[in-house]
């Protein structure tokens, strides 16, 4: 069981795909970073929030049969790495699709979904998943 702040402090990033841009070198990061790993100290005070469009394509994917405890009732599920149109790779599930429909290179867009819940009375945690663009 986790306390609530652990989840609400990430809500902007997990609900709206808010990443960061380094205004020193122009690199875009998702998840957000406090320091640019290319510019390091030079990036202090130059990291700015940036919302991604939520569109991208499948860079790689797998069908998970042996899942983690919170996801054990979802197996088999599709896990993917999405190459966003802005550049960063994001790891998330692809939903509302049959595994046979998913291909490397398939266009996807982001959607807000329930990720997991902590028992019947615990916190319900939301975040991004991806659906195929048809």
């Amino acid at each position, binding site marked *: 069981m986790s306390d609530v702040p652990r989840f609400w402090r*990430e809500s902007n990033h997990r609900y709206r795909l808010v990443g960061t841009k380094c205004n020193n070198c122009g690199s875009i990061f998702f*998840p957000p970073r406090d320091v640019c*790993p290319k510019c390091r100290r030079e990036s202090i005070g130059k990291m700015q929030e940036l919302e991604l469009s939520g569109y991208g394509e499948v*860079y*790689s*994917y*797998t*069908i*998970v*049969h*042996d*899942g*983690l*405890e*919170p*996801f*054990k009732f*979802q197996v*088999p*599920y599709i*896990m*993917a*790495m999405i190459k966003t149109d802005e550049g*960063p*790779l*994001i*790891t*998330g*599930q692809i939903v509302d699709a049959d595994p046979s429909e998913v291909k*490397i290179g398939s266009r996807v867009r982001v959607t807000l979904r329930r*990720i*997991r819940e902590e028992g019947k009375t615990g916190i319900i*945690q939301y*975040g*991004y*998943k991806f659906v195929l663009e048809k």
Partner: protein
Amino acid sequence: MRDVYIVGVGTTKFGELWDKSLRDLATEAGLKAITDAGIYSEDVNALYGANTSAGQFIDQEHIASLIADAAGLSELGIPSIRIEAGSASGGAALHEAYLAVASGKYDTVVVGGVEKMTDVPPEEANKIIGGSLDAEWETFFGVTEASLAAMIAKRLEYEGKIRREDYASIPVVSHRHGSMNETSHFRNAIKLEDVLKASYVAQPLTVFDSAPLSDGASAVVISANRTLINASENPVKILSSEISTDYLSLHDRSSIHSINAFKRSSKKALESAKITKEKVDILELHDSYSIVGLLQLMELYGEKEALDLVRNEELYWNKSRPTNTSGGLKAHGNPLGAVGIYQVVEAALQLRGKAGQRQVKGARYALLHNMGGIGATSVTTVLGVE
């Protein structure tokens, strides 16, 4: 920096050891190592213990003190320190212990690694193993370590760089070697079809592409004490120990199939040891998944040569590039905190000429790679005998 030698080694059997606790395992390995070194507890200046996740597996932190206590060292009150670096904890502990002895602070130190993984159900164990990944941006969304390895394999096959059989053959080699090692978790040889036809963990990876959940402990005694080194039949010298790190999340790396941290740690370790990779007789890789074993070969030898070695079956103990002669993580077992130390035990046995059936003839140099997660930490150790 002083010269540091491995003067004693010890290990438990690896496997599902229902009747043994973490403290039983750690004590057994440690006592075997000091007996092998011909020393007594009073000769040990400090303990360095590697453990990845006892807090989650058995609700026990403060492992350093626990192990010193269990090993009967409380009356002596010697320093004992736990090192955690995910599944690279063993290599990292050896690194710290090596620096402490090389610097002159301590003369003789025991470095051990232990993990007790089978006291929780497998789904729970998978979650704990996932602790080496990024909890906020990978595992939160349902990623397992196996699923990351699977996505690497899928992408590389898509790019036409590798074939399924190339990485499926890595566990076949490990099981062949594991069958000749009495401390292995699995002692059965397997065929390529067994790997391909087994049930999926994360497509295309099957259970035979994945290292098991194991209990086990290993320990080594390292020393700069001349009397002890001279008394040792075949002292094995630590030629170098180098650590490198990379982005924690796979999706943040410049390429998902480059193990940059291994590229860096192995290059530095070979330079510090003043040998070339062609000199390496014994290679132990962190084959937590078949595909990551292949990636490490590709980092070390280059893509083409690595694939040639695999396709020409050159990785066996009696061929040109003996790799994972212990049985690797796949067959010898994968008790997280212990594997980096077991690699040292295997290399010491090989370099002393005491590896029995799987002995590599005339082995002089060993390169060991212990990895945290899928390469966010990489520890390369080079050992040698005169």
